[in-house]
């Protein structure tokens, strides 16, 4: 049953419905279908960043100008954002990020482990409200809830998409 759920589409539908029109990202395979959907939508602008921390300032500046943005990134990018997160924190700018997790369920690259395991701690340390989706069926509602919270209460919120849900990559056999 859960295999019929297109959770990328569910995220896209939430972004569309809540009028997120600036989609900033450092590419990650886990976000690729969503990025393609956003690129295909005329009402959205997709910005490829050189590093994730640019997305914090970009989304913040967009909100200052009356536009809603979101940062899509892999968990390894969260560490790059730590000091930048002071900006939405101290100005109470609504900040939403959707993070595809690595370094947890079935990880095969040791180098992914430290930042993957450190991701919730870094976000919490910078005052970001954490939401986690472990099952495909809950992705859409989780992103909707985080986006509402961020913009209604002027807070920073992150949705962590679990590696178990995304599907852990593996080296091919042999």
């Amino acid at each position, binding site marked *: 049953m859960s295999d019929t759920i297109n959770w990328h589409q569910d995220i896209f539908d939430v972004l569309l419905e809540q009028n997120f029109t600036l989609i900033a990202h450092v590419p990650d395979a886990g976000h690729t279908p969503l990025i393609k959907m956003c690129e295909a939508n005329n009402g959205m602008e997709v910005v490829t*960043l*050189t590093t994730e921390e640019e997305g914090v*300032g970009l989304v913040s*500046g967009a909100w*200052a100008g009356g*536009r809603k943005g979101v940062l899509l990134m892999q968990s390894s990018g969260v560490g790059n954002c730590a000091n930048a997160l*002071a900006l939405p924190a101290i100005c109470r700018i609504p900040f939403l990020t959707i993070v595809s997790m690595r370094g947890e369920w079935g990880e095969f690259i040791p180098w992914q482990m430290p930042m993957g395991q450190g991701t919730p701690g870094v976000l919490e340390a910078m005052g970001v409200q954490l939401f986690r989706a472990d099952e495909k069926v809950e992705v859409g509602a989780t992103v909707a809830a985080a986006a509402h919270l961020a913009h209604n209460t002027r807070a920073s919120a992150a949705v962590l998409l679990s590696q178990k849900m995304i599907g852990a990559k593996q080296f091919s056999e042999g």
Partner: protein
Amino acid sequence: MLNRRPLVEFLLAERPDDLLVVSGLGSSTWDVTAAGDDPRNFCFIGAMGQAGPFALGLAMAQPDKRVLLITGDGELLMGLGVLATIANEDPMNLAIAVMDNGAYVETGGQATATAGRTDLEMVAKGAGISATRTVRDESELPALRDWFYTASGPVLANIKIVPEALPLVFPHSFDGVTAMNRFRDAATTEVAAG
């Protein structure tokens, strides 16, 4: 080489109604404030390296207004990648003034990379920002100001200034929420076409 306070005052003196100003940590913020408090200014007092990305997001959200980013060589050097992002997004309404004194004046005057071999105009050009210039002399300022106000962006001028420690002039509020609320109201208010 130019003195930063009269330079910034000159750059903002004929300010059009639709010009939003973002200043980077820290001397640039004191300069912009010394030129006169204005609700259309957003002045960073932290989050070093974020002024460029913020200015880009603002420019993309308010395409009918002009955004002038005023920041230092040290603040820009912290996130040079944003020049590539700006170049590729190609916002026509974004102008960047780099106050290049080759020094981290706030922390004691230690040399930045631009005191050595790094040329920020060349970096910007290499990143893909096609309209760039380096400014060293007062005689260039009227044309520079006009360029900042009207040129099709993104444009970047690397302005060579004297490394001088000046009195700090604090912006409207150190409280980020107070500063942001005032700025957002101004930034999202429509102005008559100039």
